[in-house]
């Protein structure tokens, strides 16, 4: 859930994820299917890296309605897709500039 207050600047979402398969795309959308943005991992994650990663996703101003919006995630990997698991999609928040 995020709370949107309208403004003229784009929103930036901080998306918390667990380990994602290489080459995967985690797509964020509303329950109505409005696509908000996505996250794609790239690069090594050393053994000592935390399981939780934070990716910033810009969302153009006006994309989301004012008020409370639920955000869901699905995972696309090489053309096939499924809902993201609770260990893959940990949560999302609006992050300030």
């Amino acid at each position: 859930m995020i709370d949107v207050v309208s403004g003229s600047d784009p929103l930036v979402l901080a998306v918390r994820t667990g380990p994602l398969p290489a080459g995967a795309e985690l797509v964020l959308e509303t329950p109505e299917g409005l696509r908000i943005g996505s996250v794609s991992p790239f690069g090594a994650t050393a053994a000592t890296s935390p399981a939780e990663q934070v990716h910033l996703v810009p969302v153009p101003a006006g994309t989301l309605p004012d008020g409370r919006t639920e955000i869901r995630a699905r995972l696309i990997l090489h053309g096939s897709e499924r809902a993201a698991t609770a260990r893959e999609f940990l949560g999302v928040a609006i992050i300030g500039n």
Partner: protein
Amino acid sequence: MTGAIPTNRRTVLKGGAALLAVPFLARSAAGQASHLRVSMTSEEGIAHLQTYRKAVAAMWALDPSDPHNWFRYAMIHLMDCPHGNWWFFVWHRPYVAHLERIVRIYGEDEAFAMPYWDWTADPFVADTFFASSTYPDNALDPSSSHYPDWDSFESAYHDPIEAFWNGLSDAQKQQENLRGFPDFDSFWTTGVQPNFNANPADGRSKTAAAPDLTPPASDAVMLPVIEAGLRPEIFTTVVGSGQARTGFNSPESQNHHQGVGAAILEGQPHNKVHNDLGNAAGGWMPSLLSSVDPIFFMHHCNVDRLWDVWTTKERTAGRTALPTAEEAPRFDPEPFLFYIGDAGQPAPSTAGASMDIAPWGYAYTPGSGSASAAGLQSRRGIAPNATAQANEGFGLNEGATASLSLPEGAAAAGAEETRQVAQVTFTPPRTVKGLRFDVFVSPAGETPELSEDSPGFAGSFEFFGMLHGHGHDFTAVIDVTDAVERLREAGTLPESGAIDVTLAASGTGREDRTLESAPLEGVFKSVVLESF
């Protein structure tokens, strides 16, 4: 290429690169830059890629024990690259810059400057990177004979790389240990092999017939995303806690082998372009051996350019563009121990010592995001700008016009060192071969004469290596300063108020056949006028 030769009255821009380097050189490298990095689809950029092609072939031909061997240079990335942390931009700067100097040797051209892939303007892999009738064994194409399959690679490279590994310093071995490679066997079996593209035919997902970036990469390279990435006013993204803030760089981590997350430019265009150049079958670019694909360095050159654009924007606004004093003791000393210099020598460095662009002697021509960065400042009152929507069709010798009303202070064009730059966004016609896209300025309401001898003629844009418009919108960056000045000197253009910008296509005689066979309608979408 068209037969027309640019004169000093004309500024012909190819593939999105602008030739107006002066204010940027002055700002980004204090006027000391000896090499200007240009867009790889510009005429000059394509010439640099000839040098690059020659160098890549020569480097592949070197013995695997030679640190300048192409795979050996690529392997530095596997051993040391940071991703998902605040050392991402700074580590890649020397990695690209050392190669630039090495290419001057093997490409036998001292003037070589690494061209950048401005994916926002050119959301496709340029023809130069594919085998063709001119270059049937193009070393810039990972399916060419230069790229070994796994078996022949293993038999030729395993022993020389093991010997190299055994010669690593203790400090280097400690770094590899942090990376998850405690010994050579783990490096070979969990590093080299899983990242190696075993079948050269799968080396890159894009082909000459289907070169376009596809979603999500094609969305991630669009200007609004780049602008969002350039907007932050702090160096480091801060996550967690109530202090969370968007920075230009990804968040802090304990060392540069550890990934913790990605800020906008790293996570969106950077990651997604990497991943889009491979697929389920393989491909170098999605892997940690991505730098085996020569286009890696054009990709990272653009990433480095955007860092420079951001740095310039920040310094113009009076900020440092550096980590805070509190962060610096954790950021600066990070060791980068695997670089190789142009004499084949180890060139160890630290993060703090790698920040500056000036010592490398290069600077960038403006590309996508340059004008936006100034616009981000302008909204804070530093440089005025004006925007107008056109959404009007244009065609061959048929103009479409947008009317800009200039804000107070925008009339500074003509003042010393101030340039006015128009970002012209348009949907090209389906066929672009043989066409030039001409930009004119004129007093409001007056139709300009559509000729390059017209005083209001500001410059042109051409597509290179493309027959079709790919259905994407393109943004050409055109310096209109001289045209505006000519009109003001002639007394036809007032110092402030409205100004018209007209876009029209023109064609050259030889391609007339092509022009007849396809519809010519393009759409002039919008124009942004910026003062620098």
